[in-house]
Structures are given as C-alpha cells and as structure tokens.
C-alpha cells in the first residue's frame, strides 16, 4: 500500500514508550482563524523538545483550525503529532473517514475523547453529535485496524494507530471513573494521558488504583501550567475534574508581583522531576495553554532533555 507520508522525522509515541523512555509530550492549541503563524512558531519551538505534540480538537467546544490539519502541519515541520479525536462534532462515518485519511498521511497516534459538551463552548446552539463516545471510539478504531468499518463492511486497507485515552484522577466519585478506565483498556486503549493533576499525593493514590487494574498500560500525567491566581480560582470553581490543592494556591499567592508565571513554571518543573524520580508514571503531558513559549524553560528547570533520555 502506498502511503502519502512515510518519512517520519521522529520516532512514534509507541516506539518511545516501548523503549521504556519517559515520554514527554506538549500540546498545540490551533487558532481561531487562518492566521497560523503563531501556531507554527510553537510547533517549531517544541518539535525537538518533546517527543510528540497533542493537537486539541475544537477544545472546550470552541471552533478552531482543525486538529487533523494541524497534525499534518506538525509532520511537515518534522514533529510528531498525537491526534485528538472527539465525538462531539462528527458522527461515526465522518470519524472513520478522517481516520483513514489521517493514517495515509502519517498520523500514528490518536487520543480518543468523548469531547466537552456543546454549552460550554462558543457555538451554544449547535447540535452535539455524540453518535459514539470514547469507549466506542476506541472499539471503532480497533475494528478499523482489523479491516472493518463500524457498519461491518470490509475496508480496502485498514489503519494502525497507537490508541490513547483519557482518565480523570480527580473525578468525584472516582469508582465509576476507574471502571471506565478498565473498559477503555478492554476497548483497545494502549496508553493514557490524565486530565490535569496538581495534587501529587492524590495522583499517587490514583496510580496505585490504576496499576492494580492493569500494570501494563502506559500512563502519562497531565500537567497544566499555573499562570496566575485568577486562573487558579477559575479552574477550582469551573473546571470539573481539576483541583489545585491549598499548598500550591499558597505558593502562587506568595509569589512576588510579576513572578506568578515563573512560580508556575517552577511548580511544574518540580512535578515533572517528581514523576521521573519517583517513577510515578510513564511520562508527562505538558499543557501550557497559550504559554507554549515557556515549555523549553519548564523542561530545562526540570532537567529534562529528551535527546539524552
């Protein structure tokens, strides 16, 4: 089979993971519009600093430049994309077709999400599709890999992806979340990125639970950069499944004027170091949310250089 893209500049996420290397990924948030200069700048800045970059798919139900298009740009620029696919905006036909295309264009890793609800975004009157959801999406991809679409029809050429999924360590209650984690593995998930974690003690407890369920599946801690007290207040009040514990709130509050971002960088660097030193998980996923410029500094402070791992 001829693939339109088969000259990857970087190893795949699966190759990194299976070599036992601690995975470091970043995130690219596509812009609202066609002015993609800043996004390309961020891609170029991160492509050699992280193993791969997630591309969000109309994140927070806000319409943006597409994740699939951005994945191709990342490949063109010599980086490795991790394509996020949500079920909110496309039905099973559209998702399958996109995945066939993605595969032929060199996308090797897909992160399967249900997607945020429509009302949290900027197209509040749109119809939420949710023809399938994360577990079914994982199953759907597993079927595509076996040469069948979800209608049971044979494909002329299937796909092969490293299938990723999300788990939320701060979910309340946690029990159903862990059962769903188990189902995602059964449906084909090979690796996980977590929703944002700040409370490392809770994250340790979560990892113990997760390892008891399955000690083979790879798990990367999702870390979101703290940038200001306002952002913390907003997250604690409005972002479900995200909780910034008191001692970090205090550390940010104690930061001298103009030092909030630097404090956030220091906190994340410390968390990355802890994940590596205490072997808490298999990697970290860094979400700088608009502050991608500082990711190299975070990694430097953490003493992480992927070329030497």
């Amino acid at each position, binding site marked *: 089979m001829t693939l339109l893209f088969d000259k990857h500049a970087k190893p795949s996420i699966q190759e990194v993971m299976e070599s036992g290397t601690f995975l470091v990924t970043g995130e690219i948030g596509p812009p609202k519009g066609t002015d993609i200069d800043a996004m390309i700048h961020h891609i170029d800045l991160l492509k050699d600093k992280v193993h791969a970059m997630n591309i969000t798919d109309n994140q927070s139900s806000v319409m943006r430049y597409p994740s699939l298009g951005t994945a191709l740009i990342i490949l063109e620029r010599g980086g490795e994309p991790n394509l996020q696919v949500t079920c*909110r905006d496309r039905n*099973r036909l559209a998702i399958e077709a996109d995945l066939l295309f993605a595969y032929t264009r060199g996308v090797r890793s897909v992160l399967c999400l*249900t*997607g*945020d*609800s429509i*009302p*949290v975004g900027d197209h509040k009157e749109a119809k*939420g599709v*949710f*023809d*399938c*959801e*994360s*577990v*079914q999406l994982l*199953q*759907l991809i597993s079927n595509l890999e076996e040469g069948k679409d*979800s209608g049971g029809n044979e494909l002329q050429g299937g796909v092969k992806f490293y299938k990723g999924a*999300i788990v*939320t360590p701060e*979910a*309340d*209650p946690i*029990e*159903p*979340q862990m*059962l*769903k984690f*188990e*189902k995602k593995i*059964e*449906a084909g998930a090979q690796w996980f990125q977590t*929703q944002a974690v700040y409370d490392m003690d809770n994250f340790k407890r979560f990892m113990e639970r997760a390892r008891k369920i399955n000690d083979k599946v790879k798990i990367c801690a999702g870390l979101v950069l703290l940038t200001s007290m306002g952002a913390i207040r907003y997250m604690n009040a409005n972002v*479900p*499944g995200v909780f910034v514990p008191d001692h970090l709130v205090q550390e940010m509050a104690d930061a001298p004027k103009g030092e909030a971002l630097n404090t956030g960088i220091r906190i994340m660097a410390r968390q990355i170091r802890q994940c590596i030193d205490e072997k808490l998980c298999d990697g970290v996923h860094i979400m700088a949310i608009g502050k991608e410029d500082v990711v190299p500094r975070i990694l430097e402070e953490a003493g992480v250089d992927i070329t030497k791992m």
Partner: protein
Amino acid sequence: MIITTSKPFEEVLKELEGQDKVFIVGCGSCATTCETGGEKEVAEMKARLEAEGKTVTGTVVYEEVCHELNTKRKFRENKEAVEAAEGFLVMCCGAGTQSVREATDKDVHPACDTVFLGNILRQGQFVEKCSLCGDCVLEDFGAICPVTRCHKGILNGPCGGTDGGKCETDREKDCGWTLIYNQLEKLGKLDRFKRIYGLKNWQASMKPGRVIFEKKGEGGE
C-alpha cells in the same frame, strides 16, 4: 406527559399579524397539566387577544388534541366559529398543532414550544428521563436512562466532567452516570457497568416515526 412552555405573547401576536379573527384550541391533557393550554390559559389568551383588538371566533379545549379524528370531530362541532376564523392558535404540543393542521386548510399557529417527554415531580416541575430512542436500554442500567440523563448520552460510564455527582453542563442536574453507578452497586449488578456497550442503533425509531399495530382479533386470536 409532553412538556410544553408558552411562547412569549409578543411572538404569538406576531404570528397572528394580519389575521383578526382567531379560533383558539387548548388541550385537556398535557397542556392542562403544564398550564400552557388548559381552560384557564385559553381564557386568558382570549382576553389578551381581544384586548389587542382581535376577534376570537371561538375556543375549544378537549382531551388529546393529538388525536386527529377527534380534532376533526371537534372542528365539525364548532363549525360556525371555525369557519369564521382566519387563523387557528393552538395552545399545546407540536403533535397537537399538527393535528389541527390536518383539520383545516387555514393558517395554524403554535402558541407553545414543545420541550420534552417529561416526568412530573410536582405541580409545575418536570424533568426529562426518556428521549424516545426506540431501543430501550433501561434493563441494563438499573432502570436509569444514560441516553437521556447523561447530557452526552454516553453508554459506557461518566465523562471527566462529572463533579460531585453533578453534570458539567449544569450543577443543578445530577450526573446520570453517578446515579446509574450507585443504583447498580445497590442492586449488586456492577458487572453490567463493566460490560462494554457497542455503538447504539440511532435509527431504531427512524424519523418520522410510524407504528401500525395489527388489529387485535384478526388473523388468529
């Protein structure tokens, strides 16, 4: 119970623009319970329209406006007032309004928005628990419907947006999956939670729905 809400009166007036003679239809079933189209609301509408200079040629409130034969019968019974009207204002659900559509060739106007198939909590309080998907899954989820009570209709467990057992879309609403988990746990049936549900057949009740039962007693009984 079909839950309806009243359209703003200004909107109703706009619908009736250019039609001075109006016949009002109310429903003795759901719209009476919802207080959107019972005897009382129809009388109030009549008074408000007359205050705006309209002539109300007649009003009728009866059980099940959605019953098309019955609606035609009611129109025959009110022949004079019906014939005098230029337009019909229907104060019940979309099914009732379209039942009136079948009974006349004149203009038919909805006075309500039809919002969902609802359960009654108490007077004036309704919640949606069934979305008429045509392929009932209640047996597998402790008789709590994930298609309806999870905002995203997820069939395999809660999303990351659940927060203290509440939904990310509205903290006044319970997370359907937390309810299902608690119920299945209580029943000792968490194995059902663990089972993966494949893609749902969303065409089980293909639009527009149509069910024709064979007449009982025919062909064998």
